[in-house]
């Protein structure tokens, strides 16, 4: 027999998520909020770009979004390989959670890129290799998430999505190298030529976004596990009801 407080302590000790996420995730939320506030302050106070002016400040949300999307899909690919090798379901939920967050950040990269494109290029969208390959990346991973929803059996779902998760990762490389392989309106990487003050600000944003990614992925993974636990509980309770309730055999005469 345990009291409420003991049960609560057991739950925390076993590492299962509490309300809205486990204690480490909640701590991470605090760090993420502090990081985001710092990133915004630095991005707004760093000197403006000489050519583009203040519009260039969009770089501090656009580039970190794209970076986190690449990181997320990389984690999905690695977790997918790990599932194929070990068949441990934890790897499957990590891959799924990371892909979900990756799709989200690909969306924010596309949205912020379009907002940056209008004042600098004059258009929200152009059929440029970097833009098209990124849109394709977005659609491919939406397909990955759709595939997971369309497959009810957990083992089948894990196997199919692991294979897609590994193959789809090649699109990340295509997106990254698209500015080198094709002539594009999108600029090439300015990693080496960027001003040190702007680079520092960019790194602060990248770090803050990475912490947010870890927090979101942890929470999404906890949610997937909780949903699975709920589903299994539902199956067990329906089995009990199935045993208790049976159709009466009335032996009615024909006609």
């Amino acid at each position, binding site marked *: 027999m345990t009291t409420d407080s003991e049960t609560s302590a057991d739950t925390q000790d076993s590492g299962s998520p509490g309300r809205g996420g486990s204690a480490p995730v909640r701590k991470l939320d605090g760090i993420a909020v502090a990081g985001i506030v710092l990133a915004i302050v630095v991005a707004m106070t760093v000197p403006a770009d000489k050519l583009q002016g203040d519009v260039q400040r*969009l770089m501090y949300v656009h580039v970190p979004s794209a970076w986190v999307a690449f990181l997320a899909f990389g984690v999905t690919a690695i977790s997918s390989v790990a599932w194929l090798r070990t068949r441990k379901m934890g790897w499957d939920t990590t891959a799924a959670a990371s892909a979900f967050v990756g799709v989200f950040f690909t969306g924010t990269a596309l949205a*912020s890129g379009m907002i940056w494109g209008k004042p600098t290029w004059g258009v929200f969208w152009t059929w440029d290799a970097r833009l098209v390959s990124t849109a394709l990346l977005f659609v491919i991973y939406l397909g990955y998430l759709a595939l997971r929803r369309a497959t009810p059996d957990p083992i089948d779902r894990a196997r199919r999505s692991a294979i897609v998760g590994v193959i789809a990762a090649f699109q990340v490389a295509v997106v990254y190298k698209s500015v080198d392989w094709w002539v594009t309106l999108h600029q090439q990487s300015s990693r080496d030529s960027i001003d040190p003050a702007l680079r520092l600000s960019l790194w602060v944003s990248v770090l803050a976004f990475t912490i947010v990614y870890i927090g979101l992925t942890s929470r999404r993974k906890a*949610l997937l596990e909780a949903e699975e636990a709920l589903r299994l509980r539902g199956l067990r309770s329906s089995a009990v009801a199935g045993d208790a309730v049976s159709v009466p055999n009335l032996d009615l005469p024909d006609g």
Partner: protein
Amino acid sequence: MPFLFQIWTYLMADSLHALTQLTEAAQIDNPWSWVVAGYTIVYGAMFGLTGWLWIRLSRIQRQLDDDA
């Protein structure tokens, strides 16, 4: 009912037109409008997603606790 739908479509068309005008004006006059729009969308979506995950996880945890 068709009359209400007609009014609604007129209002939507007007809103979309006004929005286009706003973005065109912002492009010319103020680069900060684009910065604010970008930051609002990205950070707004980020906090929105965090909140949605938080609420959904809390509900399911409560359901699991109640069932137990």
